[in-house]
């Protein structure tokens, strides 16, 4: 019955079941990040997402204390031309010595490399960089990657430089652009730790939203600037949610396992820190 189907879809989208995205929720099989090829925000955010998921992955019994698995970064030649190659001295400290860089001449080769990488058990996570929306990356190819990544548990973050938001089976799809960084404490004129304006415009298990992301002492910090999603239907769904009571102004959501006091102090009075299940614990 058609009305039933609508009901199910509405139930799926309702905030009581779909949890807001926040850092520390763990890895998703495939996420896509749309970013400009003129700056490093796409790669930076991809690394931040992947590292955040990697740091709070569930640890199995009897697992090795230090995860020494390799990190694979696949780039097409066009992506190298547009945004350069990873620079070891600028990489995060924990993956500097473990990075394997794959340079693919064609988009098909890059997709092949990505699929081989997510099927390898000795790899912690995979980052891919592809320019535009190539013909090879259609829905079938995207679904192939998602299934392989899900099956073997190797998360894949695909950066789409200057791409269009075409059909894809990625579990989370973000649009990221650079944001002015917070001023460092000792030199107010210098650029601070990287910050991004990130819009989650499509996700399987989270409602969409926009956050301001930054990295603080090795943890990803997300701060929601626009309180509510823009689309009409979603707004209706959210109007009776608990989160909406937080109301206008800034809502900060941090990883509840390690709330960062420095962050809370720097954003003044209109800050609320929420526990994982959405309750207001401070603010």
């Amino acid at each position, binding site marked *: 019955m058609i009305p039933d189907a609508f009901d199910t879809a509405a139930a799926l989208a309702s905030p009581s079941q779909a949890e807001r995205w926040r850092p520390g929720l763990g890895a998703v099989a495939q996420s896509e990040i749309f970013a400009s090829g*003129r*700056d*490093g*925000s796409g*790669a*930076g*955010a991809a*690394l*931040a997402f992947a590292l955040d998921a990697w740091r709070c992955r569930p640890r199995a019994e009897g697992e090795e204390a230090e995860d020494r698995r*390799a990190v694979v970064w696949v780039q097409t030649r066009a992506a*190298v*031309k547009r*945004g*350069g*190659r*990873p*620079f*070891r*001295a*600028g*990489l995060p400290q924990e993956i500097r*010595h473990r*990075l*394997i*860089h*794959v*340079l*693919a*001449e064609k988009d098909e*080769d890059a997709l*092949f*490399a990505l699929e*081989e*990488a997510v*099927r*390898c*058990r*000795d*790899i912690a996570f995979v980052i891919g960089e592809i320019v535009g929306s190539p013909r090879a990356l259609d829905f079938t190819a995207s679904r192939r990657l998602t299934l392989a990544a899900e099956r*073997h548990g*190797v998360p894949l973050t695909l950066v789409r430089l200057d791409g269009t938001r075409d059909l894809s089976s990625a579990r989370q799809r973000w649009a990221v*652009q*650079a*944001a*002015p*960084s917070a*001023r460092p404490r000792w*030199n107010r*004129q*210098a*650029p601070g730790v*990287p*910050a991004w*304006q990130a819009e989650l415009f499509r996700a399987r298990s989270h409602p969409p939203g926009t956050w301001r992301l930054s990295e603080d002492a090795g943890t990803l910090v997300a701060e929601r600037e626009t309180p509510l999603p823009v689309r009409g239907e979603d707004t209706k769904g959210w109007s009776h949610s608990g989160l909406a009571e937080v109301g206008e102004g800034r809502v900060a959501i941090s990883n509840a396992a390690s709330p960062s006091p420095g962050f809370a102090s720097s954003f003044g009075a209109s800050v609320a820190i929420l526990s994982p299940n959405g309750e207001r614990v401070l603010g």
Partner: protein
Amino acid sequence: MAPRRILSIWLAAFAIDRWRLAEGCARGEGADAQPLALITETAHGPRIQSTNFAARNAGARIGIMLADARTLCPSIVAVPGDPAGDLAELERLAAWAMRWGPWSALDPPDGLLVDVTAVAHLFGGEAKLLADVYNAFETRGFAVRAAIAPTAGAAWALAHYGPERSILAPQDDMEARLSDLPVAALRLDDDVLTVLRRLGLKRLGELGTVGRDALHRRFRNRKSPAANPLVRMDQLLGRVPEPLLPVVPQQVPLVQRRLMEPIRHRALLDTVLGDLAADMVRELEGAGQGARRLDLGLWRVNGEVAVKTLELAAATRDAAHIVRLFGEKLGDIDAGFGIELVRLRASWAEPLPANQADIEAAAERHGTSLAAFVDRLTTRLGPKAVRRPVLKGSHLPERSQGWQPALDPELPSQESLRFHARPLKLLDRAETIAVLYATPDGLPQRFRWRGEVHEIARVEGPERIAPEWWRERGTARLRDYYRIEDDAGRRYWIYRYGIAGDGRGGAPEWFLQGLYA
């Protein structure tokens, strides 16, 4: 324990003998009757590497220029020498010479050393052993001189400069027996021999008359044995050990299928390849090895041969893996009228201890290993595609990073400084930016890069990086690096190449080199 005995064999006219055997003429007959010299090309023209008997009689000596030899003997015939072939032949002879002892070593360019410790009785004594050596080499057509002594140095000296077929017994007084030999018997470099000749030291016995301290002072900077007569003398008398590198002949694992019917279709070829891979794995397993390089040769009916080579990132004995990797390479094989012989050869194998076989289901569940991942990518994308960034000793950003194969161990290097905030990505080539408006202290307020204007909002710097004067030209200019953030929050690493008025070119240019996260 039996005292050490070393047999030194000197093939006195090795290069000429090889040439003569290739020509197929006996010594002093046919082409060998004419004066003939083997030459090597040097920067100053051809130089004589080796001469035959007739040429020696005519006055041609080894080491002189061919032009000089021509003035002495206008009829001399010059033939290009073949040092690489000589060395390969010497290796084969070394493996063959193991008939006289458990191991043998090369003594390039024209000698062999064989350990004959406690084996002489098998030949009826050392004199008979030497006679056997002479006999065997004569039969093969090589002129030879050989000697047996307790050390490699003494055996070498006696073979080259001692009496024919000399044997230095363990109980003999070595210094007394060797004291009449010339100092050249010490295997020294030519310039050291010249020094010794100028000092008036001609025989080994005379070295002892000078006094060890004096010689030690004279050669105190020479560490290499070939440049220090004292070290060579000690090696000769067995006071210091002299390591020798034995030649170990290796069998290359090789499997092949001669086909009854020439195959023309890919499916059949895949079946044959699967059989060959299984055979190869069994061969390798028996030897406790894993393949690093595999050559697949396909002989076609019409006389053509196609060879496909596969290099692996880590030693493997996995037949399915080998078949899969070759499968990618066989797509463009032209079978022609059919392939009649398929051969698989592991031209490079490494020790690989036996372990429990990877069960196929487990591989499916747990995923592939890193080595298999690297192999698959290398096969499809080429060897330069899968690499790892490593630090290199330079402070210029584009030279401070090198790339090496993904699984090679990383060499120790100096860690980069923690307070340096480097960009996440570096452009392959720094790109020029057009400065639109500069503040008085030299920093652009606005610049154009790739057709778009950026307004600089925040800046840190400069960090001055000087050119590498030991490598670059004197006109290379220094760089002042700035970390900047524009009004949209985009963060870049830009630098000014040179400073105004440094006398190394015109107004300094600006470049954008890195992209921050």
